[in-house]
């Protein structure tokens, strides 16, 4: 299958980006260096092209019910211009994907939603929504608009000033997880105070054919997926397919530490299974840890007790550019999940001492 390319592929190439395949997309992984880009976001501001993220638009008389029954959070709490983080779970409460659901301005007086599934999952997610809509006999229009929208994230302590400078009317009055349309060069951009870095910032969902104009309206460090990953690990945020994977590493929201996305007082696919787990408690959970010995934890490395008994697996790991320490995430039995617990990570056959830490690893918004 050919790789999908973001609208700005040529511009990134001219800027000297290196590219990587991610979720079926050919995306910039690095423009200057991961550390430079990472530091820009922590100290100033950076812009990411995240056009590989999906966009699915849902409207119609039963749009709210369809969204409610297919996402773990409570969409009825959303006023126009609100958004929420949610899990998409199967009947067993296993996370299939995680997403942000935005409530757009009403269309034809009907509640209307745009949600953002992960890269490469938009088609399967769209199909899931259509299948359940048909099975439940609901009246809702579900459009996969992934190819109609580019998406940019402007992140960092100075992001609000930058976005205010670019939009015709300021947007920095928006609170965290609030959004509205703002115009940049006469183009309507869905502008949300959300992000995946732990910093303040905005995500802009913009028409594909205006992508170049919008991107160039921001004069700040361009950032690739490499620093996006180190930033989100420091912030303790999950990466689909890595920190959970319905096939290879099935996890519930409670194990993954996103139980706050589960609204048990609503009806959704997976709700009953999750209610039981909420009562019984989990056996394993995702923890953050820091390596005390020299080495870098990587996805797939074993986590062991101090007696070298394997008790878990590293799901994400890196050398933290901010802390200058090797950090990671992984699932361990709850009795080993307490911050301060000493564990080991096996790096190329050698046991390296690690300590469980609270996440996020850094101060976040």
């Amino acid at each position, binding site marked *: 299958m050919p790789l999908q390319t973001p609208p700005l592929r040529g511009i990134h190439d001219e800027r000297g980006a290196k590219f990587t395949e991610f979720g079926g997309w050919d995306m910039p992984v690095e423009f200057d260096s*991961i550390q430079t880009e990472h530091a820009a976001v922590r100290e100033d501001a950076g812009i990411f092209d995240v056009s590989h993220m999906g966009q699915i638009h849902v409207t119609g008389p039963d749009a709210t019910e369809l969204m409610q029954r297919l996402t773990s959070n409570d969409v009825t709490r959303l006023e126009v211009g609100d958004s929420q983080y949610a899990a998409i779970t199967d009947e067993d409460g296993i996370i299939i994907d995680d997403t942000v659901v935005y409530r757009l301005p009403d269309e034809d007086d009907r509640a209307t939603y745009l949600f953002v599934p992960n890269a490469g999952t938009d088609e399967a997610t769209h199909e899931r929504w259509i299948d359940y809509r048909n099975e439940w006999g609901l009246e809702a229009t579900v459009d996969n608009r992934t190819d109609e929208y580019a998406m940019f994230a402007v992140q960092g302590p100075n992001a609000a000033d930058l976005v205010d400078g670019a939009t015709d009317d300021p947007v920095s009055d928006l609170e965290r997880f609030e959004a509205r349309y703002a115009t940049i060069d006469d183009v309507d951009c869905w502008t949300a105070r959300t992000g995946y870095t732990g910093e303040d910032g905005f995500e802009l969902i913009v028409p594909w054919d205006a992508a170049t104009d919008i991107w160039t309206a921001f004069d700040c460090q361009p950032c690739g997926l*490499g620093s996006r990953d*180190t930033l989100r690990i420091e912030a303790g945020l999950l990466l689909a397919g890595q920190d959970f994977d319905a096939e290879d590493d099935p996890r519930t929201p409670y194990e993954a530490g996103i139980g706050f996305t589960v609204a048990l007082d609503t009806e959704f696919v997976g709700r009953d299974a999750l209610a039981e787990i909420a009562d019984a408690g989990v056996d394993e959970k995702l923890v953050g840890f820091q390596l005390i010995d*020299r*080495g*870098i934890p990587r996805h797939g490395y074993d986590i062991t007790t101090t007696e070298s008994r394997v008790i878990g697996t590293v799901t994400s790991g890196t050398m933290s550019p901010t802390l200058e320490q090797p950090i990671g995430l992984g699932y361990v039995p709850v009795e080993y999940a307490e911050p301060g617990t000493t564990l080991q990570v096996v790096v*190329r056959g050698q046991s390296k001492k690690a300590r469980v830490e609270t996440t996020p690893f850094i101060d976040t918004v």
Partner: protein
Amino acid sequence: MSFDVPDDRRYLESHEWALETDGVVRVGISDFAQDELGDVVFVELPDVGDDLEAETEFGVVESIKAVSDLYAPVGGEVVAINDDLFDAPELVNEDPFGEGWMLEIEADDPDELEELLTAEEYEDQIA
């Protein structure tokens, strides 16, 4: 983008360089390799006194995004390692052919170097 390929030394296809002085072969990775890796944040090296075989792994270099094995250009005993890299792995990015060197091997057979790529051949490989 063009990369430095000094012609005073030999190269491996796996991007290590080897510079011989009086039977001692200094080893590091090329400018191209450090650029491909990005920010180097960790280097694992053998101990002084270890015996290495030509074209076998002697260590690991890790950037934020990748883990890469290091291969010995010649067989012999490790007589020095660059332990500055443990505290300052970024030297590999900043000066791959100089201060970013990794180790020195007392070559069992310095003629083994003749089998490695010349600068010109290596330049063709990365072109």
